[in-house]
């Protein structure tokens, strides 16, 4: 496995020496494009840019590919039992299928091996600088970018290179979002964020409170039902717990069959409610709150086992937390419970600490940039963010098409500048657009997209770019 320390690796020799605004030397990398991160979105960006004839330097802070899906990485959120929640056809790159003998919902270790094979198959590792993190990204004249890097951990000198374009693919599932509760500091029990949950052994024999009904929260609650001595599952609102299989097929494949048949949203919602009613029935009889929204309005939770364990008494659904006491937790309905371990599966926030928030239109610095297609930045035509999506299916095909669109755009900037200008106007006009049916607003859901709506919007943008 070639790494950045391998001898004989071409060093990015400075072709011309310029000087940055603080007087340090900047090596000019010409038309080369910089990709930040070698996770799923970064890899497909590298692959598609190379395919379109660009030189690429990719910086990865870890020593392997796979980003969040590489459990060896210290920022990886995966736990031992992580499985995909969208089935294979929705999760693979559209031009590099997963082996068809794999299960419908592969395990995270299979996914990592898939990314490693992708990198080897397309010979991507020679473009990647492992163990190198990006410290700063600054715009300079002519829409070019100065990227400052150093070895991960802050060792060694910083070096700055000038690139024609930058793709940010640093992921959004590594910076934990922790809610604030009154009295949390005085709580004597153990508190952890789901990002540090790795293995069911951490729960064994304990009284566990799991907070959050995302897919992670539900997975942990299910494991706690099997391993812990007690399990409470605290959710703020009611959710629709979608089974992974309906009518003998993976549920998302059934959903896309309906989409392909152009069944309208209302009818699909009605069918969905009907199916759930007929299979799992009314969840309020278990004490679960009634959902305050219709399906397709929040990020779907694909978990067949949660309802099963609730029905077996393994999981006790409880409402939101009111405050923490030193030896207990008070709930909003006045009850008090005494967990030893509290797991916050409350999600993550996207962060771009190497970039001035104003560039992405994130003036308040809350990690909520204003982009078009969740990827293109108004007034910065050579900057793109990929993979910043929370789709209701697999992310990787969407990241693939984002990368294709950006690569074509960069190529047109040279061959047909007028077309690229038209695209920039489109980006300005469309910034902040959403691609989902009336999704509930929260810091988690602002980059939620419906994969069908989003892909249609991407396809339209590709056609506009290529037309005539």
């Amino acid at each position, binding site marked *: 496995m070639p790494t950045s320390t391998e001898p004989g690796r071409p060093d990015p020799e400075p072709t011309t020496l310029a000087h940055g605004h603080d007087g340090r030397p900047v090596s000019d990398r010409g038309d080369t494009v910089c990709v930040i991160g070698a996770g799923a979105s970064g890899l497909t960006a590298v692959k598609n840019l190379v*395919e379109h*004839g660009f030189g690429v330097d990719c910086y990865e802070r870890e020593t392997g590919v796979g980003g969040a899906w590489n459990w060896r990485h210290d920022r990886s959120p995966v736990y031992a039992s992580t499985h995909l929640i969208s089935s*294979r*056809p*929705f999760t693979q790159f*559209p*031009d*590099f*299928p997963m*082996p*068809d*003998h794999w299960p419908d919902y592969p395990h995270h270790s299979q996914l990592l091996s898939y990314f490693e*094979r992708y990198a*080897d*198959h*397309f*010979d991507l590792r020679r473009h990647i600088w492992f163990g190198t993190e990006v410290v700063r990204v600054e715009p300079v004249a002519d829409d070019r970018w100065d990227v400052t890097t150093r070895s991960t951990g802050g060792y060694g000198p910083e070096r700055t290179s000038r690139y024609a374009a930058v793709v940010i693919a640093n992921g959004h599932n590594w910076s934990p979002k922790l809610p604030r509760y009154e009295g949390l500091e005085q709580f004597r029990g153990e508190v952890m964020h789901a990002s540090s949950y790795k293995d069911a052994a951490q729960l064994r024999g304990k009284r566990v409170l799991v907070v959050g009904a995302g897919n992670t929260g539900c997975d942990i609650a299910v494991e706690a039902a099997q391993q812990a001595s007690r399990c409470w599952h605290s959710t703020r609102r009611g959710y629709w717990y979608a089974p992974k299989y309906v009518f003998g097929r993976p549920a*998302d*494949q*059934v959903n*896309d*069959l309906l*989409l*392909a048949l152009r069944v309208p949203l209302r009818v699909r919602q009605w069918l969905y409610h009907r199916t759930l009613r007929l299979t799992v029935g009314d969840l309020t009889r278990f004490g679960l709150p009634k959902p305050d929204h219709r399906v397709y309005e929040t990020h779907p939770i694909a978990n067949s086992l949660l309802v099963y364990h609730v029905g077996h008494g393994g999981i006790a659904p409880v409402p939101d937390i009111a405050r923490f006491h030193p030896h207990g937790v008070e709930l909003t309905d006045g009850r008090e419970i005494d967990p030893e371990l509290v797991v916050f599966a409350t999600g993550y926030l996207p962060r771009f600490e190497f970039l001035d928030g104003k560039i992405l239109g994130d003036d308040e610095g809350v990690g909520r940039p204003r982009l078009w297609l969740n990827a293109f930045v108004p007034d910065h035509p050579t900057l793109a963010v990929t993979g910043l999506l929370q789709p209701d299916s697999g992310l990787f095909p969407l990241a693939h098409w984002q990368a294709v669109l950006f690569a074509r755009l960069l190529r047109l900037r040279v*061959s047909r500048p007028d077309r690229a200008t038209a695209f920039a106007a489109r980006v300005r006009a469309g910034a902040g657009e959403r691609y989902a049916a009336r999704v509930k607003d929260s810091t988690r859901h602002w980059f939620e997209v419906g994969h*069908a709506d989003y*892909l*249609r919007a991407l*396809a339209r943008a590709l056609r506009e770019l290529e037309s005539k």
Partner: protein
Amino acid sequence: MRGWEWARPVRPVRREVLSAVPELEEGRPPLLFVPGFGHGAWAYAENWLGHVAARGFSGYAVSLRGHGGSDPAPEATLRAYAHDVVQVAASLPRQAVLVGHGAGALVTAHAMARYPARAAVLVAPVLGGWATFGTALRRNPLGTLPAVFGAGLRLNRRQLFSGELPDAEARRYTARLGRASRRAQWQLVTGADPEPAVGDPPVLVVGSPDDRVVPASALTRAAQRYGSAPLLFPGMGHDMMLDARWREPIDAILDWLVKDPTRDGRD
């Protein structure tokens, strides 16, 4: 959006893949050979695979489902065949060159829309459509007509091989021929054109003007579709990898690859 494809994934089968790998890996792209209807991976294993390995390329040949040593699939579609090719291509260690023969060239063209091949070679390509059907009817009415009603397409010895191939060998090869599924045979005539190839790979068309399955005009048309002219080897039959002078076309293909057509300054 490929909702239909996502909603109805192709059923997995066990696929036969024959290979010949050179002793010394020289960093050349692997070649994946796709046989035409009725043929299996064996057709390439006879001559071409060994020759390719001797010249420093790794060669792989897949049997489409229902052919050769792969699992039977009587209801397979062209899409399932293309799926087989893409699956094998993606399982190779490096980005592969696809080589399709006969109707396998059409399968290859479909696969190129789902896998960014490094390059592609279409050998005596049968790209389908009504013209193909007309030629087949005119030249081989007895073998073609039953296929309209779902029987296997039959090709005779004189169509597949030149007179130079010894009779015994020709008989041995024709005895090994199988058949494609009837749905795939119908789709050969009525199916939609392949979607454009992804990754813009260079494409070479190879054929023989004396091929009694694919007329020279069809070769020119196929090559035009990919913006080039066909490379012709007179005096050979349709099954160029089995015919007596099998060495000439494969050498030409490898020479073309050695020149590295991907760096031809294409845009």
